[in-house]
């Protein structure tokens, strides 16, 4: 019998690969397959889990998925990483919390909303990189040593 974290991890890992599949051209198919295998290997070896997510990112770069599938793959990746790292932790350590799930779903919904809202402005490519960098720096700020 599989422990619940492993079951969630396996399911979300495979879902992440499946979400990347529809938009993937022939060129990206081996990458998606490799990601699925790495996702399963990640249950035993944690480094394989990060590799699986990076491979999916590679596959998504090559393919042209819809916004819904990209967000779904992102949510699955987040749940996958959280549940893989819950395996083998001392009792009392629970990465897959309600607040983490809330953050994932909230940001996913916001991204979906932005992607679905029609219309684009010609100056978006100018501010997008700067916004992305600022967003990332704000997000990793809590991770600095203290």
């Amino acid at each position: 019998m599989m422990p619940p974290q492993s079951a969630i991890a396996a399911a979300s890992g495979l879902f992440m690969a499946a979400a990347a599949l529809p938009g993937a051209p022939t060129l990206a198919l081996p990458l998606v397959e490799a990601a699925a295998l790495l996702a399963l290997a990640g249950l035993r070896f944690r480094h394989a889990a990060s590799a699986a997510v990076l491979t999916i990112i590679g596959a998504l770069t090559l393919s042209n998925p819809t916004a819904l599938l990209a967000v779904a793959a992102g949510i699955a990746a987040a749940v996958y990483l959280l549940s893989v790292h819950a395996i083998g932790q001392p009792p009392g350590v629970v990465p897959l919390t309600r607040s983490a799930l809330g953050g994932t779903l909230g940001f996913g919904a916001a991204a979906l909303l932005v992607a679905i809202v029609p219309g684009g402005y010609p100056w978006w490519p100018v501010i997008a990189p700067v916004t992305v960098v600022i967003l990332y720096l704000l997000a990793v700020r809590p991770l600095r040593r203290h």
Partner: protein
Amino acid sequence: MSEPTEIRWRPSALALSFATSTAASLALAVIAGRWQLISFAAPLLGVLAVLQWQRPHSRVQVQATPPLVRCFESEDARFNVAVEPTASDAVLELRAPVAPGLRVDLRPGDSDRATLCVSAQRWGRYRVPVEVAAVSRSGFFIGTATVPVGELFVYPIADPQPTRLPRAQLPNRIGTHLTRHRGPGVEYADIRAYVPGDQLRTVNWRVSARRGRLHVTDRLTDRAAEVVVLIDTFQQPLGPATDATQRCARGATQVVQSALRSGDRAGIVALGGHPRWLGPDIGRRQFYRVLDTILDASAGHPTSGTLAPRAALPPHAIVVAFSTLLETQFVLALNDLRTRGHPVVVVDVLAGSPFTDELDPIIAQWWRLARAGMYRDMASLGVDVVNWSEQISLEHAMHLLAQRARRR
């Protein structure tokens, strides 16, 4: 409970994998111009954004029972350690620390308890730390803290053989050293005519009957000595001299142990970095008090200056000093004791030269000549020097001294 100690928190493997995945995704999105990757990265960013409220602030408290353990070299000391976070946002685990000079073995008990088995090969005072590994409840932060839990006093082990003391005038106290003084005792000395005041039990009835007058048997009395050990704790040059100082404590322990066993009073004076002294006394307790003074722990009175304080040495106390004889202040203190009338013996623990590298033969010869000259000068002042090398035991070195004194 110890004072709360800060934990050094750093991101865990989970946090790093989130950060790298997000960074890779966003970077590729900008470089390759794929807006879908930003949608992919958004849920990952969401998890990182929530972390702002999940940063752990816990500190760690450790309790050890007993807080202080005294033991001898290579003996095992046990500490029962319990660890507790100050807040509930972290899960703690005890780990064996890396402590110089100590061998620490951690036997895990319940979740937050463990038994530390500590032993040291060299005497001294040690602070026993324990390492605490912490994981935040969210799993995004890990941390470590090294917390001092207790103190370990490791006493030197000395050879059990008794050491000889130099011949000296002993105070009028009954002990185990045979003297030439007449008085109560066992060894036969002489027969003399009875004088009023002699005890009746000392009357030699056979001689009295033959002579027709009362005669008594005189006996040699056994007296106790007072031994004060002087140790050199001055800063020594690195190399053989520093290694030799650890034999100072070992030799001092042996002399004190053998003196206390034969019923003598023993005390100690440590001169040098942190001068301290303990007056002579008898008994097993005094042995441990002397050891505590050697380790500079609780027992002993602090003093100042470079000379041995007068209160530490009763008149005619025998002084046995352990030193490398490289520090002039210590040699001056010995001369001062000699002028005060104490019989002084110095055990030179530095057998060879104090230099680490091989010396030119001529310089080595000079060094030996200089040392021999210093020995002679000290002997002319009345301070006997015994060379104690590592190969021979202390009682053999001290035996030579007794022979030398007899020949003189």
